[in-house]
């Protein structure tokens, strides 16, 4: 057991997989000698050599396309896309190629990639360092999509993702790298060291993809969320005094529908919470699943609390980001009708 922040936990997972599987390779822009702009690969090139951990040209299409070829060869590439905002140039290689290679070839070839990329806002990154594109991937058959909310989960989920034989989009909420951000931008962030989930087990362990977890047990209201918003939801429960049950989905696809249904059936009320833009966001899918499975248990409409349907603004970041107050207001509203 060691105390780690999320970057350290991610680095530890990479270190372990590089160590126990010679087919694992890690590469991306600035990830080699430098160790990544968020330091996730710091020291790994020194330890495993430049043909296991290396820098890539600034060509996301090439990074993913080459990874698909490496995967077909039998490697397990773990490319990093420096910011999730920059994954779109690779979208065709992800959605048309990595996601369909197995289907196309009856499993003769597969693309066991894990594409790591920092997502989400809260760092004044503006339109191009803040986005949460998860819904673009969950719509594509053949992809798995993961977003951890704690160091412990990040390590176990990343190991499971790398060991998975299918392509996994591994979204890392960059606002959580250094601490469990509760959505109060004007308060100092508590470091991970003061959070229980910074106790990260040593060595190899997996957190299986497709399993949600209850981040806060509650009885009045179910909150379906993931990533940074897990911590904001917990803070909003305290702020609002509403006994919300916060479900941390962890994996968006495959989705743990049963965990969702059992909670909503017990509380009868549901809020869907994410940072991404609202229209056609992953929250829409969650609403659809909830009403398909639990309509007759619902005492009120499922409420979506999300980023607005605008690009991610710079100066207005904290009006865009669903902070604890706005989320708490949402909880109250969800209890009203």
């Amino acid at each position, binding site marked *: 057991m060691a105390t780690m922040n999320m970057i350290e936990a991610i680095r530890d997972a990479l270190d372990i997989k590089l160590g126990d599987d010679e087919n694992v390779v890690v590469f991306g822009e600035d990830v080699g000698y430098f160790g990544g702009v968020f330091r996730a690969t710091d020291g790994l090139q020194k330890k495993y050599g430049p043909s296991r951990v290396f820098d890539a040209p600034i060509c996301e299409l090439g990074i993913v396309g080459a990874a698909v*070829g*490496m995967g077909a060869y039998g490697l397990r590439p773990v490319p990093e896309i420096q910011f999730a905002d920059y994954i779109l140039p690779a979208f065709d*290689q992800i959605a048309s*190629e990595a996601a369909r290679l197995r289907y196309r070839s*009856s499993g003769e*070839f597969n693309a066991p990639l894990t594409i790591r990329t920092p997502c989400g806002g809260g760092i004044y990154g503006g339109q191009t360092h803040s986005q949460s594109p998860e819904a673009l991937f969950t719509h594509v058959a053949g992809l*798995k999509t993961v977003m951890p909310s704690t160091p412990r989960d990040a390590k176990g989920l990343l190991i499971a993702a790398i060991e998975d034989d299918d392509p996994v989009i591994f979204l890392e909420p960059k606002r959580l790298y250094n601490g469990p951000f509760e959505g109060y931008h004007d308060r100092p962030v508590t470091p991970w060291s003061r959070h229980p989930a910074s106790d990260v087990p040593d060595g190899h362990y997996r957190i299986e993809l497709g399993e949600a977890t209850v981040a806060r047990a509650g009885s009045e209201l179910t909150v379906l969320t993931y990533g940074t918003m897990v911590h904001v939801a917990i803070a909003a429960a305290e702020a609002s005094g509403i006994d919300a049950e916060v479900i941390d989905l962890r994996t968006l696809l495959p989705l743990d529908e049963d965990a969702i249904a059992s909670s909503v059936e017990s509380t009868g009320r549901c809020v869907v919470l994410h940072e991404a833009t609202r229209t056609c966001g992953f929250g829409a899918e969650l609403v659809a699943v909830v009403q398909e499975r639990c309509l007759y248990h619902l005492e009120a409409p499922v409420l979506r609390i999300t980023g607005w349907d605008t690009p991610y603004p710079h100066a207005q970041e904290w009006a865009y980001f669903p902070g604890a107050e706005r989320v708490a207001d949402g909880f109250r509203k969800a209890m009203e009708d």
Partner: protein
Amino acid sequence: MTQRQPLSLTIPEPKARPGAAPDFSYLQLSVAGELPRPPIDCRPETIREHAFGLVRVLDDNGVAQGPWAPTLSEEQLLHGLRAMEKTRIFDERMLMAQRQGKTSIYVQCRGEEAIACAQRLALEKGDMCFPTYRQQGLLIAQDFPLEEMICQIYSNAGDKLGGRSLPFFYSEREHGFFSISGNLATQFIQAVGWAMASAIRGDDRIASGWIGDGSTAESDFHAGLVFASVYRPPVVLNVVNNQWAISSFQGLAGGDAANFACRGHGFNIPSLRVDGNDFLAVYAASQWAIERARSNLGPTLIEWVTYRAAAHSTSDDPTRYRPTDEFGAWPLGDPIARLKQHLIGRGCWDEARHERLLEELTAEVKAAAKAAEAKGTLGKGPAPSTAEMFNHVFAEMPLHLRRQRQELGY
């Protein structure tokens, strides 16, 4: 100083459109045997001329000329001739099958047979090709069972791909044939990545990436060149310039501005421009590039100059956009006729034997088609199960897909 004529946009046009006489005057040609054969470890900047000239071995009389003339046994050459003829007969048969509604679409490689058939001869088991839909010769040159190919084309009960994929989108790992994608060019950077993996593992396998002239405009082509020039993996980068991309002539991909072989100069990748209808030249150039790759000397770009003799696909009607008799006027001729002429000239082949070969191959293809047809054709007779549609989306079927399959009643 700066003149004030209004600006105007250049829109490239082919030399000849329907009605006009074919005109290939734009084509830079070399005399067979003219270009030197550099050592495989030459510095790229010393062989730039090879992107402007044309590597050719067979002269107009079918005699092998010059330093590129490969040492191939008559047995190998006859195998090549057989492979090309088989490919053409197979294509003709499948074209007919599509017309008869046995499949949805088909693509021939007529006129381009030499490229895939000769390069395959130079590759080894364990090497991997990342082909387009026009390299069926890579399989046929290995005497791959035609029946299996046809079952896939018919999406029938014998289709190893379970009917999920388009016709002729083969995937044959054991035969060094990567799963074909319908998205142009994507395989090109994948080939480079595969080759990088071989180098990372310290193996000795090489990759061969394929792309068409029109598709070189795609981003994946550029990504392939960037990664190939940076990591120098063991890969052969094949650009098949058959002059056309559906209705767009090669000039629309920048072929008028510069030969496709020149793309390599932008990255100092050794680049050859080769007569793609000259079986001996294709073998020789492929063998040179493959040896470079295998010797850890890195990538080679090869532009194969050829001509798409058939329609783009069964959905296409080329009479709408190009002169009908272009193939007849094509300066590089027909690859099959040229190799045949060479073999006859060498005294190891004759018309009678060729006749018998054609009969034999026709019978073989016919028999394979019959056998495949017994397993069904698209939408008729035995077919892959409907449930196959839900397989291979993931290694293990997740809950939501199982539910959907049940929803459909399976």
